[in-house]
């Protein structure tokens, strides 16, 4: 299968993620959309790593693991922040985040 298919698929996923961030108001869903963006990147990296010669290719797969680990760390912090917010205002709607402006 040509590499561009993977490219298109992953870009499509990435754009779905961005559109999700733009349109959804629930903080958790926004966060899930960001995770979709990250996974689109993982997919792309794996595809590229198969495309490049083996020596350079291994770097790409390695990077995927880094991303997964960092994303996990980010999830733990992020969910904690969302929970903290939920305890205060009993909502995870980002439209309520408007005390700080101008």
């Amino acid at each position, binding site marked *: 299968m040509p590499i561009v298919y993977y490219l298109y698929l992953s870009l499509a996923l990435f754009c779905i993620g961005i559109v999700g961030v733009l349109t959804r108001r629930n903080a958790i869903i926004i966060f899930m959309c960001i995770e979709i963006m990250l996974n689109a990147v993982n997919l792309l990296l794996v595809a590229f790593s198969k495309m490049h010669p083996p020596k350079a290719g291994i770097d790409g797969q390695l990077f995927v693991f880094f991303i997964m680990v960092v994303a996990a760390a980010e999830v733990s912090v992020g969910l904690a*922040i969302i929970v*903290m917010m939920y305890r205060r205002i009993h909502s995870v709607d980002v439209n309520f985040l408007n005390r700080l402006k101008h």
Partner: protein
Amino acid sequence: MNALLLSALMGVVMMFSGIVLKSKAAIRNIAIAGMLALLLVNILEMNGTVFLVIDSKGMIGFDRFALLFNSIIFFSTFLYLTLSARDMEKVGVNYAEYLALIFFILCGIALVSSFRSLIILFLGIEIISIPLYILTGSDKLNLKSNEASLKYFLLGSFSTGLMLMGIALIYGAKGTFYTSGINMVNGAISPLLIAGMLLLMFSMAFKVSVAPFHFWTPDVYDGAPTVFTSFMATIVKAGVFIAFIRLFDEGFASQQPKWKLIIAILTAATLLIGNITAVFQQSVKRMLAYSSIAQAGFMLLSVYAMSPDSKEGLILYAAAYCMATIGIFAVLIKMSDYTFDGFNGFAKQQPLLAAVTTIFLLSLAGIPLTAGFMAKFYMIKAAMYNSGLLWLPILALVMAAVSVSYYFRVIQAMYFRESSTPSTLTVTPAFRYTLVALAALVVLLGIFPNLLLAWLYF
């Protein structure tokens, strides 16, 4: 390398010190001593003493520029801790953890200042960002702090996504994560590379709050506990800037014609939005947030000019900006009222603090005989020499003039207005002496900038 390892170690030490030690003063002293040790080992490394060599396969490279920059970062953090570490107690109970997070952030800065591979860049940026999300939200009972934290987290993760996509596209085009490999020109330039470069640029721009990716900055800086805003606005911002300039200097130097104009546009937008929006702010804290955006615009001039002297300029600028802003924040943290009116009559109540604050403000505004003037001078001169665009340095000068108006509002409030409430401010003598030393340093660097820059070459 010394500093990288020690900072990570110190982070762990601080976490455990919270469990072992009960006295906050002891924890603070450990942190400050650790900070000094960090500075020391970094300076030793500049003189060639490396304690532990780790083979990073060329992914990390500490050169003179990175080391000097790290020294400035560590020195600023040292000052920051001596001036403001006490105030972290007010934020919440997890005192040792805050300090641990600060050391982890320094570890991230050491990584991004020396990266040779985009993997390290990504890791460093994340190591900086994740603790910052926590620090921003550390005032758990304050709704503003919560809100700032969540906003920062959502927008920050979004920009991480952009960065990763950018790295992936570059990898697709070049087959490597090394900056040297990315810089090599072989055959036609792939659009993947350019798209990846732009995405990477956007996410870096986000981290240093360059317009139009700056929107998180005022809200987060405003909402976060002031003591951490000070850290974020100075040390972290300068730390990410070195990654920015390194990325474009080593990774994309061969693509200069492709990004120069875009950086110029971003710079102009940042200067305009930062400076002009700052004029109408009512809170000094929020004004300083916009001022940090404005100052980022000036620092971006060094990326735009991209020459040896622009790197020097960035070093000087980072030092001048960090010192002055840390000083102002150190005073601001002590105030009960963050509006401009809160500073009314400050010169009467605290003549010394008012005088040093004035020096810091003058430095930020770029008035001669302060470090800020020299820094701006270097930046604008570099931009004037290394570009075909004359309008950008001129815009920078005009905006520097505008910036005077909002910095002087504070001076005006301190000196020319009467206070309605008596001062409730109490500071220790050590705090005063550190501030005075800091102000002296700002003036000294304004007269002999080469004291600092000579380190780059000897």
